[in-house]
């Protein structure tokens, strides 16, 4: 047994040495679905990371080190992600990027924490760019996990603040997928609305099984029968697109507040059906007041024939680059310390990686699905002739949430 | 205890609107070799299927050793000591001859659904299977899969499986069907020897076999037993000659 362990360790040391000699290129392991149901989204995000990495390399953001994105297909499975993590460790890669699915995020955060504890000197740093389960920066927070996206509670805070100002909103319907995220959205919406606008009535609430419903027409008649003027939904993928299509068919005129209206595939599937009625809450919109980041989106579109919307990639690379520069090192231990409390200028303004829970604090946007008009809505989504019009930009403090995280920092 | 091994009381069975068995009464004393004969379509195989529990009866009662077995499932009837063979060979095709026979003795030896005995460590099933295999003359084919045996060998194995469990009442459905003369003779000897001391009920077309083996004969025509008796009585019975041989003549005329 001893010899085996020693051999393993020796192999790892060799791998590490090889990495050390080639320190000028920092490999970032991208662990997300590249095959199966969610592959289009994963592919888009991989390209986003690559595009920003190329940009940073050209402009030498990090003052020396270059970024390289190494993709690993996790098939959207937590267990496959852990397999990928093993390969990442074998290959001596010290940075992990992941975003799709809180299940994967929780599994990775947990496994990375255990790995770092059991293998000092070989720590891995985990940048979560899209998994929004609040637990990750609250009860289950971890020192090696950094979240670049706003979590679902923050988004709900922003959304309800915006809703509360609209006097036309009277009857709200909560429509979500029946799993932890959908349940969390429904719960948060009820809580926050009761706090901000107790006069708003929750006229109905539905939780439907994830990706099981083919026909949303019955749900839409139920929503309609309840006299709804506003629907809040955390649905994503086809569950969202089909809902909006069905709503249009039945002549339902309510507004839809979504989390995932802008992800790959939804704009195409939704098309005209969502016009003027679908809104999404997010941390950026290309059609913002000054079109900040439009050049990135254009360049991305030219190269990949796809839309750039995962702006967290920009924030992520910018933060890593700044940390490399400040610490003159690419060692995750030093970089992690530098990332705590770091502020960078990203495409949506100033983003701060809050020290207490490793949750990025940033302005949030609410945007509406409208026809292109060449003025404030210049940029199209998935060649549909429609785009997102910025309705409001909410300052960072609006959505900020207290945290229950008790961060354990390595000594 | 009833002296009869098997008793049928006003048994009726229909498929759809057609009544196949029309109130059959039959009593077979223990230890008798009894043959059921009758023209094609008279309902002989159906009668067997009713007795062995393959089909439920519409009305009437079936008694085994005086005990009512009407409506019981095939395996329950089997456990009460009645075993049957099939007209169309019905074996465990992917298992070897030996395994076929061993499967047939396991329940009666009390091993039931055991998953804590090692089969090859069990002497008694092995001995019994070997013995039956010897009696049906398939020892040389011990490890051959049942599915690839010759037709006559399969028929022999069919009988072997039927008798292996040691049931006291045995139903044989056309044991010599499709055999040539010498195979038939061998089969008759086999049936005679393996049913020694047991109750045998068989359906058979070959009159030679019937008159050779049976102690008594029942004649089934259109779902009714028109006569029952010793071979010579049956041979002399004018009603049988009229109905049964008449039907035979018609059949011949058709062919």
């Amino acid at each position, binding site marked *: 047994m001893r010899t085996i362990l020693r051999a*393993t360790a020796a192999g790892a040391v060799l791998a590490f040495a090889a990495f050390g000699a080639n320190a000028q290129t920092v490999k970032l392991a991208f662990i997300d679905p590249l095959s199966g149901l969610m592959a289009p989204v994963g592919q888009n995000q991989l390209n986003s990371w690559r595009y920003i990495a190329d940009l940073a390399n050209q402009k030498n953001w990090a003052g020396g080190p270059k970024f390289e994105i190494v993709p690993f297909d996790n098939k959207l499975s937590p267990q496959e992600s852990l397999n990928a993590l093993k390969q990442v460790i074998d290959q001596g890669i010290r940075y992990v990027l992941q975003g799709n699915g809180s299940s994967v995020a929780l*599994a990775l955060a947990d496994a990375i924490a255990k790995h770092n504890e059991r293998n000092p000197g070989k720590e891995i740093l985990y940048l979560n760019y899209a998994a929004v389960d609040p637990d990750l920066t609250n009860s289950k927070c971890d020192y090696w996990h950094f979240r670049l996206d706003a979590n679902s509670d923050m988004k709900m805070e922003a959304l309800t603040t915006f809703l509360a100002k609209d006097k036309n909103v009277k009857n709200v319907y909560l429509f979500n997928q029946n*799993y932890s995220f959908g349940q969390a959205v429904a719960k948060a919406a009820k809580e926050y609305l009761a706090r901000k606008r107790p006069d708003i009535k929750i006229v109905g609430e539905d939780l439907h099984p994830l990706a099981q419903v083919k026909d949303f027409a019955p749900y839409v008649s139920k929503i309609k029968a309840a006299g709804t003027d506003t629907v809040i939904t955390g649905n994503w993928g086809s569950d969202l697109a089909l809902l909006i299509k069905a709503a249009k068919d039945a002549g339902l005129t309510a507004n839809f507040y979504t989390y995932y209206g802008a992800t790959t595939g939804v704009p195409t599937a939704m098309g005209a059906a969502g016009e003027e009625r679908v809104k999404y809450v997010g941390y950026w919109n290309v059609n913002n007041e000054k079109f900040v980041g439009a050049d990135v989106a254009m360049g991305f579109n030219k190269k990949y*024939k796809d839309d750039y919307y995962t702006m967290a990639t920009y924030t992520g690379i910018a933060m890593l680059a700044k940390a490399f520069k400040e610490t003159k090192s690419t060692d995750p231990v030093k970089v992690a310390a530098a990332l705590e409390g770091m502020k960078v200028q990203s495409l949506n303004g100033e983003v701060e990686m809050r020290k207490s829970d490793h949750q990025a604090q940033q302005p949030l946007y609410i945007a509406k699905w409208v026809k292109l008009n060449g003025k404030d809505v210049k940029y199209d989504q998935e060649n549909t002739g429609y785009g997102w019009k910025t309705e409001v930009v909410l300052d960072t403090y609006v959505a900020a949430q207290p945290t229950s995280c008790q961060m354990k920092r390595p000594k | 205890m009833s002296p009869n091994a098997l008793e049928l009381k006003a048994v009726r069975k229909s498929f759809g609107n057609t009544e196949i068995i029309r109130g059959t009464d039959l009593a077979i004393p223990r230890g008798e070799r009894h043959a059921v004969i009758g023209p094609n379509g008279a309902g002989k195989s159906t009668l067997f299927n009713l007795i062995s529990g393959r089909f439920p009866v519409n009305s009437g009662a079936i008694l085994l050793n005086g005990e009512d077995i009407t409506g019981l499932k*095939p395996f329950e009837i089997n456990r009460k000591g009645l075993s049957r063979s099939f007209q169309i060979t019905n074996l*465990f095709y992917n298992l070897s001859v030996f395994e076929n026979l061993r499967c047939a003795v396991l329940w009666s030896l009390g091993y039931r659904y055991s998953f804590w005995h*090692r089969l090859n460590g069990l002497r008694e099933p092995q001995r019994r299977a070997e013995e039956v295999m010897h009696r049906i003359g398939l020892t040389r084919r011990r490890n051959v899969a049942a599915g690839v045996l010759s037709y006559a060998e399969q028929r022999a194995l069919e009988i072997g499986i039927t008798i292996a469990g040691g049931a006291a009442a045995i139903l044989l459905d056309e044991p010599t069907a499709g055999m040539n003369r010498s195979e038939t003779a061998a089969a008759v000897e086999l049936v005679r020897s393996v049913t020694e001391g047991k109750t045998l009920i068989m359906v058979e077309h070959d009159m030679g076999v019937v008159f050779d083996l049976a102690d008594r004969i029942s004649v089934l025509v259109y779902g009714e037993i028109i006569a029952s008796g010793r071979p010579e009585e049956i041979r002399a019975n004018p009603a049988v000659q009229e109905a049964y041989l008449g039907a035979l003549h018609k059949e011949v005329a058709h062919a």
Partner: protein
Amino acid sequence: MAAGVLRYQPLNLARWIIWGGTAVLMAALPLVFTQGFAITVISQMGVAIIFTLSYNMLLGQSGMLSFGHAVYSGLGAYIAVHTLNLAAKGQFWMPVSLLPLVGGLAGAFFGVLFGYVTTKRAGTTFAMITLGIGELVGSCSLMFPDFFGGEGGITTNRVFGQPFLGITFGPAIQVYYLIALWCIASMALMYAWSHTPLGRMANAVRDNPERAEFVGYDTQKVRWLTLIISAFFAGIAGALTAINFEIVTAENVSAVRSGGVLLAAFIGGVGFFFGPIIGACVFVYFVVALSVHTKAWLLYLGLFFMLMVMFAPGGIASLIMMQVQLIARKRFGRIARHYLAAGASGLMVLAALILTVEMTYKISVDSATGTLMKLFGMEFDAAAGTAWAVAIGLWIVGGWLFNLACLRVARVWGEIQTEFVEGRA
């Protein structure tokens, strides 16, 4: 009797050699594959072997085609992970090494429950009920976050309490040896099961349920008991998965998992006891290792499976046994060179296939970074005519040669078989 002893002695010896060899091989594997990822892969193979063998108790041994076997391993894993968490909290004493037993009992419990319903029927109906139950349990896994942990699943830490003889189960290698031990034990037990009265009657029920009823067996009960035992071993596999990954999520009970084990068992060969063992290893390789190299791994897996169904329905195991028969009768040499020819031309066809699939994939899915790609250590342009010309050329030439070689193999094979039959007659 003496003859019997003489006949059985060498056979038992061979069995000891095979089992001993397997154990030695499993013990030695980590010495060869020292990297963390490789250990993960062989650990998963060990778990998959138990799972696939338990599945084959149904499909191969008892003729029950199940589309919901992951229900038992998955629920076993959930119960095991909850038990582990309670034990870690000190609620009761429970060593990690015995956890698979908890998983197994949990699996068996659900086998009793669901099996009572499913095994009432056989054949296609059985397959459909298992599909329905699989979908039901799969949907429930997201609806009841209390037990299933919702999307995030249930995480755990396998390291707790005082180390026993220096074993903490922290390092992956220790977990591998735990899996290997359970794997050997499960294999031996499942093999033993196939030689018990119930195991044999399961074969009988598979071959001819009606006749089984007429030799005194309640086929429904045979199927039910078999399913319970199979679910027990599936539960062991589930618990080992939980220990290995330290997380259990909804994917453990999903239809994908159930479909996967069917693929694995069939590819390996359901007709032989060792078939599923091979199948499990090949399948894990496909899923875990091949997906590293190509995004089209599912395509290759599907294609491989279909070719097996069409041309080798007995799976890899039957192909091996066919060769063993030839070797045992000293005819292998005669056919070997034809195999070589078929293998060589087959490689050409395979190369053509890989080239076509990868180039198409590159162009349709991944062309944003240009159409330059690397394959077989060569770099070329997927959009270039020459690459396609090479592919088409390989298809034509390779296909032609392969067809020719296969015909020859078939002919020689037929000749040898005729000789065997004549020799016996």
